[in-house]
């Protein structure tokens, strides 16, 4: 994943507000709190172009912990927030089933990535050409693209979304792990 470039992430004001790190008992307040957390998580991951999130480790670091005010989110609260992100399509649980310990954050939804990938392939005349997933995310041809350095899981989900629309086909060669994709106009 590409490292963050330029300016540091600008935390919202609420990040310095201690109660923000405690799950509010009032349902309406919690919903609003959760919404703000969701926005923050997506914005933070977009800024750092990061997608994987290990919950137990993440709560010790920003944005889930604020050392200045010595507050940190509880893992089970974070789990609830991620559940909401999953509902919105901005995240997906990864790792062993039902553990809910690691997840993928989609700072851009796979369907949106799907559109970007398809447009790029069409513009480059790469439809009906076999491309490896590696060259999409790490190749020199796409070095200037937004999806350069995109993690494999998100890339694959995006291509699967495109496949659902009949605009791409994922397939494997003689080894099962290295996938290829063919875009269709």
């Amino acid at each position, binding site marked *: 994943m590409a490292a963050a470039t330029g300016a540091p992430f600008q935390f919202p004001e609420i990040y310095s507000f201690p109660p923000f790190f405690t799950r509010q008992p009032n349902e309406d307040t919690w919903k609003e709190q959760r919404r703000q957390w969701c926005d923050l998580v997506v914005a933070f991951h977009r800024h750092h172009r990061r997608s994987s999130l290990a919950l137990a480790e993440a709560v010790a670091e920003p944005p889930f912990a604020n050392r200045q005010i010595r507050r940190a989110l509880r893992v089970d609260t974070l789990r609830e927030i991620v559940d909401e992100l999953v509902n919105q399509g901005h995240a997906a649980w990864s790792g062993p089933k039902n553990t809910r310990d690691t997840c993928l954050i989609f700072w851009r939804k796979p369907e949106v990535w799907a559109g970007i990938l398809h447009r790029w392939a069409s513009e480059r005349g790469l439809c009906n050409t*076999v491309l*490896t997933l*590696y060259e999409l995310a790490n*190749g020199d041809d796409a070095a200037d693209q937004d999806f350069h350095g995109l993690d494999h899981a998100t890339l694959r989900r995006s291509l699967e979304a495109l496949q659902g629309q*009949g605009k791409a*086909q994922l*397939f494997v*060669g003689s080894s099962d792990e290295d996938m*290829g994709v063919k875009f269709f106009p």
Partner: protein
Amino acid sequence: MGAEQSKHRVTAQDKAVLDMKVQRDKLKQYQRRAQAVLEREDQLARELLRRGDRRRALLALRRRKYQQQMMDTADQQLFNLQQLVETVEFSLVQRDVLAGLEQGNRVLTRLNREMRIEDVERLAAETADAIAYQEEVAEILSSAMSPADEDAVAQELELLERQEADRLRLAMPYAPQHALPEQQQQQPAAAAAASAVGQGNVESEEPLPA
């Protein structure tokens, strides 16, 4: 339907191309790794030399040299592989072009078979005949008319003349206009009598002086 269709769109050639491209990716990954090793050995050699350990610095440089040779080999292989991939992909395009040409040729042959030259000649002759016939008909129609048509035309001319005359007579006195219907009513009676032709003439002239 779409999913079913797209499944067939991946061919054995695609898989072969994918295999080659995967190999190419692996070579590229290897190069990245080797580049990192190169830089590390280089730094190590400098470090050792600074500490006066010539023997180990030499060893690091040897490793670096070896790594460099491997990189060159990988470069060569990468080039060959890339070339092969491009040749295969271009051949696939050529195959499609050939298929397109064949398809076009087939269609053209079939169309030509459907349009046999005798048929076209016959059709052209028939068309010419039909045109000639049509021209003949037009000629006859414009030159000669049937007696009935002639009568109709003459009647039409008479009607036009009468209308013209009526228009001129509009300025005339009122009385003569009454005489006309009277004359028309009396005419059948006069025809039945058959003998009183002169009388009819007198009667028709009678209102004029009045």
